């Protein structure tokens, strides 16, 4: 019959800290969470079906809208998948600039993650500081392609635009500013006793369990699994650069926080190397006027700021639209782990864990 000791609480689709329209139905025993039922689909726009009716070139615009916090990463994944299908060669200058854009996106996405995660736990000032840095990146992107959120910054075969004059100096200046600011964030949070108490030993997941449940990206690396597509299956120009992949050890929220914080520094390292070694040359390869990949299918994945962003595209070789367009969203697969992570924790930790996994609902629902 009824278990009268349980309380069912709904963290509804509208809630200050679910980072979008996410619904979590919690079953509580007093203050402890027994089970969490995650309901998604409020932002489902049918992108996969829509792209079966859009040109190969038009789809780049649509991919912007999935993970709208890191739009250039989605563009990169899609363009690379189609280039793989067509066996297209991308010129080195385009590959370097794509890497710079992707790393700038990683920093921008992590800035937003840091701000919202800290605000959920109560440190509201970090939110404003992180967004100040994110604004600088958005200004850089506005200089480059004219848009602040949905960039449409890449084309199949390369890039539509070369970098504007003095853009590289601005990016270098930004990298210097960011390195200082990351030290500031560390000062505010990393050794703060309250932060440690709120994030240590909260949401612990071991490496094998994380792999089994499908976590990827910084959430997986926080549990000590050395998995980074930029190192394991290098794409764009990552094979030319030296950088470290930070790993956690305990698999708790604090380790995931440290991993992402260190990724800030590694990203600026990559950007500086890319700017130093930027080759001359064309920015788009030999692309036919009408893009029609030969019949075939492929799966290609990149390391987006949230995890493994994969595209499975099927082309039937004859029509000018894809036959099947599938996105493997990292946030969708990472969110699966939420019920496992919150079990046994208090209600106040649920909010910290949603922030720690770092989801964006545009990607979860597509």
């Amino acid at each position: 019959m009824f278990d009268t000791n349980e309380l069912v609480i709904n963290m509804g689709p509208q809630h200050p800290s679910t980072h979008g329209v996410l619904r979590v139905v919690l079953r509580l025993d007093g203050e402890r969470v027994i089970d969490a039922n995650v309901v998604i689909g409020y932002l489902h726009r049918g992108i996969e079906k829509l792209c079966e009716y859009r040109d190969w070139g038009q789809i780049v615009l649509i991919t912007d809208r999935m993970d709208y916090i890191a739009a250039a990463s989605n563009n990169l994944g899609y363009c690379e998948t189609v280039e793989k299908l067509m066996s297209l060669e991308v010129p080195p200058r385009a590959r370097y600039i794509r890497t710079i854009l992707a790393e700038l996106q990683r920093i921008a996405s992590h800035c937003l993650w840091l701000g919202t995660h800290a605000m959920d736990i109560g440190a509201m000032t970090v939110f404003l500081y992180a967004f100040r840095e994110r604004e600088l990146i958005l200004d850089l992107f506005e200089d480059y392609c004219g848009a602040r959120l949905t960039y449409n910054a890449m084309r199949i075969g390369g890039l539509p635009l070369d970098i504007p004059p003095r853009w590289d100096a601005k990016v270098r200046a930004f990298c210097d500013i960011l390195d200082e600011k990351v030290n500031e964030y560390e000062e505010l949070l990393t050794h703060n006793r309250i932060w440690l108490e709120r994030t240590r030993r909260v949401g612990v997941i071991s490496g094998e369990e994380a792999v089994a449940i499908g976590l990827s990206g910084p959430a997986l690396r926080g549990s000590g699994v050395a998995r980074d597509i930029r190192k394991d299956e290098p794409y764009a120009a990552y094979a030319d650069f030296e950088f470290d992949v930070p790993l956690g050890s305990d698999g708790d929220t604090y380790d995931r926080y440290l991993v992402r914080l260190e990724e800030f520094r590694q990203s600026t390292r990559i950007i500086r190397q890319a700017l130093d070694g930027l080759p001359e040359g064309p920015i788009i390869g030999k692309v036919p006027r009408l893009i029609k990949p030969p019949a075939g299918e492929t799966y290609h994945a990149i390391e987006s700021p949230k995890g493994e962003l994969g595209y499975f595209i099927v082309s039937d070789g004859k029509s000018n639209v894809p036959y099947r367009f599938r996105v493997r969203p990292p946030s969708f697969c990472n969110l699966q782990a939420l019920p496992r992570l919150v079990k046994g924790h208090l209600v106040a930790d649920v909010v910290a864990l949603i922030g720690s996994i770092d989801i964006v609902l545009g990607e979860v629902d597509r």
Partner: protein
Amino acid sequence: MLETYLVPLLKIVVLLNAVLVAVTYMVLLERKVIAWVQVRLGPMRVGPHGVLQPIADAIKLLLKEDITPARADRWVFTLAPIVSMVPALIAFAVIPFDSAITLFGYPITMYVADINVGLLYIVATTSISVYGIILAGYASNSKFPLLAGLRASAQLISYEVAITMMLVSLVVMAGTLSMVGIVRAQLEAGMWYVFVQPVAFVILFIGGLAETNRAPFDLPEAEQELTGGFHTEYSGMRFALFFLAEYANMIVVSAVATTLFLGGWLRPFPNVGALAFLDLVPGWIWFLGKTFVFLYVFIWIRATLPRYRYDQLMRLGWKVLIPLAIANLVVTGLLKVLL
């Protein structure tokens, strides 16, 4: 005749007005300070640099619709914010702003009343304001405010134990419960009690943060908590009263901390003759300055620190602060006897 009735009445009127204006402008102070910490400007539109913002807020709240939940207890619902606000105001009766000043030839003491159990009076009034929270949670006739109200009151009561223990050690030092007497004892000792009883100061500071439900101890009223806190069902002026009661409590705690530890109206280093020129500044300006520093630090902490989870907060109160307060009391007693 004049002196026994008119002067105290005047003092009460002036004090109440000053406190209410101060409480209202605390809102602006908090918004401005937090904004400047967060690299933004805060209210700038209403009046030059936003100085008329609190007046605009007050007018807005007064004009709001008066909503009472359907099956709520009307009387208790209206009473709860009053029970929260009034004890904070009446606590100011024993706080000494200065010893005495001469106005038009009359010597006027800068406190409304100097009762010989002033400290006990303050502890009593802050304990009454806990009732306001419980009544609010009960009267809302809704599951979540009730639970949140019980939680908040549990937090307040726990930290009150720590503070009261700490106050006992202070009384042992000064030998009197009267607020004016404690400041005089600091004058005789020649130094502020913060240097003599640093542990007690820290306990008062942390306990004060918890008593007033300020960050980092504000989980019961944070938005990220599922329940909106004990004042969920309140709107308009009643909500404003809770809000202002919180600020009034903050000012009380700051004033008490100033009186007990920072020497009240004494100048810095009251025993050092070379600094006697500082006596040109009237005592009450020293007092207000020190209180202001406390208020600023409270706001600064809110802008900077994350918040504690409820169980961690209770653990801090019971397992850390209370043993510390007891240890402080024991050591103070021993030293007082031996020295």
